């Protein structure tokens, strides 16, 4: 069940059949429509917007649908400084997201508190949420965010989707 050859096409081509694993198909759907929950908290959000605009065009990777409702999003991009005052809100938004869900910590502040060694700033969102990808930079360029997204896609495509599905009882 392992390997990169996830999809086999019939030699006849169009109008015939495709054989694949369900895991690979589900992951293929998931990784090409990672809808972000843009948790824009500081200047990283500006770079996040740049990633969505035409020059960098996050739509090339299927992640252009910025959902401002956590119930419709798959990946929370924490872009910016997370203060303790904001932390319960972010936690609640994360909990409202439906499974499967992922978290990208974008930039120094979201990854480690950054330059804000302060009583007011949470020293990294990993103290609050399970982070999948950390992006370095202050703020990271859109290229770096897109790289993180591609790495997350690679990660999603390796997940055992069927085994982690919730069973209806």
């Amino acid at each position, binding site marked *: 069940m392992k390997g990169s050859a996830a999809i086999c096409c019939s030699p006849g081509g169009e109008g015939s059949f495709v054989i694949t694993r369900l895991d690979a198909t589900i992951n293929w759907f998931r990784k090409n429509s990672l809808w972000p929950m843009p948790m824009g908290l500081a200047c990283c959000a500006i770079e996040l917007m740049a990633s969505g605009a035409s020059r960098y065009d996050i739509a090339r990777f299927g992640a252009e649908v910025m959902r401002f409702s956590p119930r419709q999003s798959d990946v929370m991009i924490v872009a910016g400084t997370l203060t*303790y*005052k904001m932390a*319960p809100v972010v936690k609640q938004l994360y909990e409202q997201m439906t499974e499967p869900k992922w978290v990208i910590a974008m930039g120094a502040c979201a990854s480690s508190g950054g330059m804000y*060694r302060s*009583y*007011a700033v949470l020293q990294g969102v990993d103290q609050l949420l399970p982070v999948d990808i950390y992006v370095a930079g202050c703020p990271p360029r859109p290229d770096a965010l897109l790289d993180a997204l591609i790495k997350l896609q690679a990660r999603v495509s390796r997940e055992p989707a069927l085994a982690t599905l919730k069973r209806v009882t």
Partner: protein
Amino acid sequence: MTPRDFANRLMARFASLVAEPVQFRNEVTLRVTESERLPDVCDYARDSLGFDFLLDIASIDNFGEVPRWTVVYELYGLRHHCHLRLKTHLAAAEPELPTLTHIWSTANWHEREIYDMMGIRFRGHPDLRRILMWEGYPHFPLRKDFPLAGLCTELPDVAFTRKAPLEGGPFVTTPGATSTIEREPRARTSET
């Protein structure tokens, strides 16, 4: 009219309340000796002297000195373009001042910020809640006895804070030391 003229008029009106003005680079600072009478002084400054704009209110923690607290009011007149500074000192462990919101409504948020950061309460304020930290936070972070790294607090369902690691963090200057290494250590644990 110069700021000095306004200061003289204020001193003539409140001879027992307003102390000798200090002039520095054309800025005049007056000390209000009785902080409880501050609204009377400010009322007069606005209505009779034309200081219709309260630029800012600042607070100082003179930790280890008596009196411990200083509150600074920056007054400005948009018609005569003169600036006047009023200072008042507070000594109490739980300092309190009368509010100025009924004179300048912009004092509302300034006073909330000072309450939030320094813990000086304003009597008669219509809405004295915290403005930067969240409601229920137990400390006043700009007080000098509050450590730079912060304090641990745990408030279920509201918020929490932990100490920030200061290694590799900002420079914390200690004035008076001879060498730069002593004067600007990379981290310092507590002010107390």
